[in-house]
């Protein structure tokens, strides 16, 4: 892997374990200890760590950054981040959109800062908090039982009382736990499934976001058939039969390539 990637990985390990060991890193990345030491020197000069005998420890200032007080699990992995970036391109100013629960949609909410005059209905409380950092946004939260599910704040059993009756969304973004050609899209939680079903009936554009690991998976509660989505956003390439299916059913599939750091200097 490239040096920059390796350094990012070292940083991540520091955040998780608070200290790293030179000989273990060199075995892990399969490179010489000299290279590792050079990486650690660079990271020390950037203020991230302090080198010790045989390794390094994370600097205090960084330890605190890792625990942001306003969310439990606000980190998302690179795949989810790429999906969110692509999704954000579909949101235009002055639109009326729905954001679902999960880390992908939370990530989307973090990067919408430059849009104007958006009205967002969501059952994702973490997303609502991020969205409201922009005072111009009109943020509407679903009513229902508030809780923490799989590490994120959300309202799962919403919209039973006709909350949605007079609403129509320009776009609906949902993240699912399973996509299968036989059974369609599914999520783990059955209440969430009912919520998503009601929401998807109120729009012309259902954008399904899913990491590649969700394909060929069947989760507990089925939202709808595979052709109910109008767009699919994923990060890495998906299995061929899915690609074929979506192509033949006029459903564009967006995925991403990590091309940003392969440019030679």
């Amino acid at each position, binding site marked *: 892997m490239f040096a920059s990637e390796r350094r990012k990985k070292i940083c991540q390990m520091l955040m998780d374990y608070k200290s790293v060991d030179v000989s273990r890193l060199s075995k892990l990345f399969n490179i010489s200890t000299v290279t590792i030491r050079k990486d650690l020197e660079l990271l020390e000069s950037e203020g991230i760590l302090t080198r010790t005998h045989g390794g390094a420890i994370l600097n205090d200032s960084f330890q605190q950054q890792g625990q942001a007080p306003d969310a439990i699990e606000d980190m998302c992995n690179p795949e989810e981040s790429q999906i969110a970036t692509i999704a954000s391109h579909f949101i235009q100013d002055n639109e009326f959109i729905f954001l679902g629960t999960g880390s992908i949609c939370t990530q989307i909410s973090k990067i919408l800062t430059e849009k104007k005059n958006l009205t967002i209905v969501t059952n994702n409380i973490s997303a609502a908090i991020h969205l409201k950092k922009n005072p111009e946004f009109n943020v509407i939260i679903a009513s229902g039982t508030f809780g923490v599910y799989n590490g994120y704040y959300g309202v799962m059993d919403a919209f039973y009382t006709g909350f949605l009756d007079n609403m129509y969304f320009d776009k609906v973004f949902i993240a699912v736990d399973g996509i299968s050609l036989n059974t369609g899209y599914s999520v783990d939680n059955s209440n969430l499934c009912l919520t998503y079903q009601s929401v998807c009936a109120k729009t012309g554009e259902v954008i399904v976001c899913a990491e590649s690991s969700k394909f060929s998976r069947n989760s507990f509660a089925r939202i709808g058939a595979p052709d109910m989505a109008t767009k699919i956003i994923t990060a890495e390439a998906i299995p061929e039969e899915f690609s074929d299916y979506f192509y033949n059913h006029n459903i564009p599939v967006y995925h991403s390539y990590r091309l940003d750091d392969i440019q*030679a200097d």
Partner: protein
Amino acid sequence: MHSHITLEVSHLSKAYDSLRLLSDVSFCIHSGEMLSIVGQNSSFKTTLAKILCGLEPYDSGAVLIDGGPANISSPHSARSLGIVSLGEIARLCEDLTIAENIFLFGKRGISPAKIKHNWNSKKAVVESARSFLAKYGFGWLDPCAAVDTLGLAEKQILAFLCALTQDAKIMIIDDAFSALNPEELSQIFRVLEQIKDDGMSILYLSSCAKVPEPADSLLLIQDGKIIFTASGEALRRIDLASIPFSDPPRAYPKLPVKLGEEVFRCEHLSYRDLLKDVSFCLREGEILGIVGGAGVGKTTLARLISGHLPKSGGDLYVNRKPVRISSVHDAYENGLRLILDDREFGIIRHLSLAENLIFPCYNSRKFALSPISSRKYTETSYCLASRLDINYFDINQPPELLSAGNQQKMVLSRGIVAGANIFILDEPTRGVDNIGRVQIYNMFNNLLREGKSIVILTSDLGEAAGMCDRILLLEDGVLSETPGAAAQKRNAV
């Protein structure tokens, strides 16, 4: 007039991995008959032509010549079976004269007795060539002219005439008259009528919307399948433009990207008499489509703005500053990169896949002195192949073994790694299957998101409409906007 069947093709099919090139194609041609096969580009009619010339094998079906099974395994065996072929690129000896070319390819003596006696009589050769040319109505060509001074139209005519000197009974013409003007074309058609009367069977493949006059029957081919046939009287009454080419549903992943500043502009570009006044501009994050029929100059335009061909006139501006692009190096310096449809300039055939991928990484002066560690080279090549999602058997395999889509991604990666800003692609998804197309389109999206710009020159109208921000039509050497309906575009092409 229609006596025996000279060529019969029965249930011919060919597939490459998951891409079906030809599906169950059947037809037959009698002696003295001309069969016209019409198909838009990417209908795989050229694949059919290549199979019949012995350049490509087929998977199933049969080809019969004069009623007996024919094994067309190579161009040589095709020739010996009496098949002669003409393609869009005229195959001639460039540094010889017209007269020498005619006699070079001719099998039998079409020369008068003088040549038999005086082998080296240049005058005799020229005189015979002159009478040969006049016989077919092309007396205005000068037999003493060297072939490399001729324009494409004249070369195509010459290639046709050379084909007449061979002892053939089946002639396959694949878009071989794309550069001819209407007068020259009607003369060619007159000659075709003549040789039809002499018993020649002609297979005429083209993408134009008009049925050629000498044609006796017609086939329409799309996506490797025959979708329509007609013959005899009914042929005269057909209006090809009205036949619905059913457009299969396609899901083009067009990503809306915010456009930036103008990054490229060309004004009043001209090239010989093919391109007269071409002007367009391009912004950051924009993908521009240029459509047009075969031979109209799309590839030429692509080569002009990327330094592969010298322009005759016009100005180029990069980032609003005038630039001089007289070589490929100039183009690279300015961030322009060309990727052709046959990947001609992209694939370095004698290097492996790994070497092709890392080649641009080690191009800068920094590495001129330091040795390249082999571990770093392997790591980098694996990393690039996985980032680009290239499907390979072995990282050291020769690049031709990759599928078309993977080859295209490999070629694109050279531009990406080298840091190009403006990508010019000629027929980016020709020969690529659906899955590969989606991958390439998404790669475009990635580049556009980063602020790069793309120009695609394509004859696939669906692709242009589905993926491009703007579409321009190249016709008669000039670019124009197309507000149009699909029918309008289709008629022009």
